[in-house]
C-alpha cells in the first residue's frame, strides 16, 4: 500500500515564547525545529503500516528550505521518499496549504491508499487542512485518531473520548488525521540517518495565495501579575503543604 504523510516544521518551544520585532513569527534563533507532535506520530504510523502491509511511505511538507531537516528525520525511520513544497518563509493559510498539497499529490502520479495528517498543527492549530484535502479528492476523512488498523480495503479508526472510544470504519483511499499517543515514535538509528541522506526529495515552489485567512500579527497573552509563595525547602515543608491542602478544603 502507498501512504502519504503530511508534516509541518515548527519551532521546538521551551519555557517561554519570544516574538520577532515585527511580531510575524516566533523568534526561533535560540530554538531548534521539530516535526509538529501529532505529525511525528503520523510518520511513525505510516512506517508501521508499511512494515505490516508492504508498500512504501512518502513524506510531504510545505515549508521553508530548512524543512528538509524534518523530511530527513522522517526518512531516517523508514519513509522512502519526500516531497518538499518549498516556501520563502511566508505563511500559507489553510486554503493555500490545501491547494499546494492537492496540486502536489495530483502531480506526483502515485495513487495513495492512506493520506495521514496530524489532527492540528502545534503552531497554527487550524484543524482543517486534512479535511479540505479529503474533499478535494472525494475521499472519506476521519480526524483525531488514536488507533488505526487496515484490513483489506477497510480502515478501522478509533477516536478517544472521555470515558471510552468512538469507532469509525471507512474504505480506502482515505484521509486520517491522527493524534499524539497513537504510538510512541521510534528514535532514528545511525544507519537510518545515513540512509536518509541518500533518499530522494522532490522539490517544487508552489505560488503563495490569499486563501482568506490572513495573519496580521502575533501577540503574547497578557501576563497576569504573579507571585509565588515559597512554602519551604525539602521534606520539612510537608506540614505547610498539608496546611495548604486543608485551607483549600482538599483533605
Amino acid at each position, binding site marked *: 500500500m502507498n501512504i502519504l504523510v503530511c508534516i509541518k516544521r515548527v519551532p521546538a*518551544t*521551551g*519555557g*517561554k515564547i519570544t516574538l520577532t520585532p515585527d511580531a510575524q513569527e*516566533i523568534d526561533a534563533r535560540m530554538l531548534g525545529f521539530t516535526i509538529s507532535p501529532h505529525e511525528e506520530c503520523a510518520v511513525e504510523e505510516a512506517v508501521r503500516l508499511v512494515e505490516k502491509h508492504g508498500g512504501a511511505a512518502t513524506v510531504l511538507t510545505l515549508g521553508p528550505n530548512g524543512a528538509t531537516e524534518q523530511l530527513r528525520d522522517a526518512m531516517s525511520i523508514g519513509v522512502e521518499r519526500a516531497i518538499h513544497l518549498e516556501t520563502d518563509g511566508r505563511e500559507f493559510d*489553510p*486554503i493555500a496549504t490545501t491547494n499546494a498539497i492537492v496540486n502536489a499529490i495530483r502531480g506526483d502520479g502515485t495513487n495513495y491508499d492512506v493520506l495521514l495528517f496530524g489532527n*492540528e498543527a*502545534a*503552531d*497554527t*492549530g*487550524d*484543524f*482543517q487542512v486534512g*479535511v479540505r484535502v479529503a*474533499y*478535494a479528492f472525494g475521499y*472519506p*476523512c*476521519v*480526524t*483525531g485518531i488514536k488507533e488505526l488498523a487496515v484490513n483489506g480495503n477497510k480502515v478501522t479508526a*478509533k477516536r*478517544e*473520548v*472521555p*470515558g471510552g*472510544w*468512538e*469507532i*469509525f*470504519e*471507512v*474504505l480506502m483511499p482515505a484521509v486520517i488525521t491522527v493524534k*499524539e*499517543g497513537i504510538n510512541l515514535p521510534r528514535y532514528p538509528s545511525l544507519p537510518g540517518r545515513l540512509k536518509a541522506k541518500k533518499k530522494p526529495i522532490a522539490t517544487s515552489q508552489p505560488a503563495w495565495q490569499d*486563501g*482568506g*485567512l*490572513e*495573519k*496580521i500579527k*502575533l*501577540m503574547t*497573552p497578557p501576563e497576569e501579575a*504573579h507571585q*509565588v*509563595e515559597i*512554602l*519551604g*525547602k*525539602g*521534606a520539612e*515543608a510537608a506540614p505547610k*503543604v498539608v496546611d495548604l*491542602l486543608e485551607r*483549600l478544603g*482538599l*483533605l
Partner: protein
Amino acid sequence: MILTYIEQDREKVNEASFEALTLARQLAEQTNAPLHAITIGSAADELVERLGAFGVRTLHVASSEALSAGNTAVEYAPAAYAQSIVEIIHAQKPAAVLAAGSERGNEIMAHVAAKTNLPMAANCIEVQAGDAYIVTRQRWGGSLFEQAKLKGATKLLTVAPNSIPVVTNSFVAQTVGTNKFVTTLSENDLRTRIISRVETSSGKVSLGEARVVVGGGRGVGSAEGFKILEELADLLGGAVGGSRVVTGLGWRPHADQIGQTGNRIQPELYISCGVSGAIQHLVGAKGAKHILAINTDPDASIMYKADYAVIGDLHQVVPAISAEMRKRRG
C-alpha cells in the same frame, strides 16, 4: 443573520456551545443582525428556553432518518452534521457561523469549510465585525495569540473553549421559534460515521475531572518513581498525570499526558513534581485554580506560573507530605 451551532451528543449539550453563542451575540449586536442557532438531533424544551436568554430568535433543528433509526438522537457523522449547517448557509446566507472549538466543533466546521470552500478561523477569542472580520485566535494551544483578517461571504469561526465568560442577556430574552428540517444527505455524507462505541472505565477519577492532580515531569526519573505520586494522589482522591517528556519516555501512558497534545486539567490544585514547565505542558494545566510546584530548581519556568512552591527533591518532599497527611489523620 448570525448562526451558532449548538453541539449535542446523544441529547447531551456541550456547554462550550454557550461560549460560542456569547461571542455570536456580541457579533449580532455589533452588526445589528438577528441571532439564530442550529442543532442536530432533538431540541429539548430546556434548550429552547436557555437559548432565549441569549436573544436567539430561531433554532433550526436538523434531523436525519439515516442516522437516527427512529430515535430523536442523531448518530455522529461529521459530514452529515456539516451538511445541515451548509443547507442553512445556502438558504439564509448568514454573515457568520460560529461553533465551539471542541473536537467536534472544529471537525464539523472544517467539513463546512471544505464543502463551501470558505475560509475558517479556529479557536477565536475575540471578533470585530466588518467587511472582513478581525479575529483574535489562539495559537500553540493558547500560549500565543494571532490577530488575523477573516474573509468570506459567510465567515466561519470556532471559539476557543474556556476562554470567554458565558453571558446571557435576559433583557432581550425572547421566545425562540423552532424550524425543524430533514437534511438532504448524499452517500458521501454518511461514509464517516460512528459504527460503535467502547466504554472504558478504570474506576478511578479522570484527569479532566479530578479536584487534585499530582503531575510528574522528568525529575521523577523513572516509571517506578511515580509510585510516590500515586500514593499522594490516592490519599487526596486525585489523579496522576505527567508531562510530554514523561509520556514520550514511556514512563506513563499517553492518556496520562497533561499538555497541548494531551489532557487539559482543571483541578482545584495541581501539584507539579519535577516539572520544568514547558509551555506545551502549561497549556494543559492552565485550568488549574492553584498550582503547587515541587522542584529543585527555584528558577524553573514552572515557578513563574505556580502559586505555591517547595524547593526540594520531590523524592523526599512527596513522601513527607503523604506521611504528614497520615499522621494528622491518625
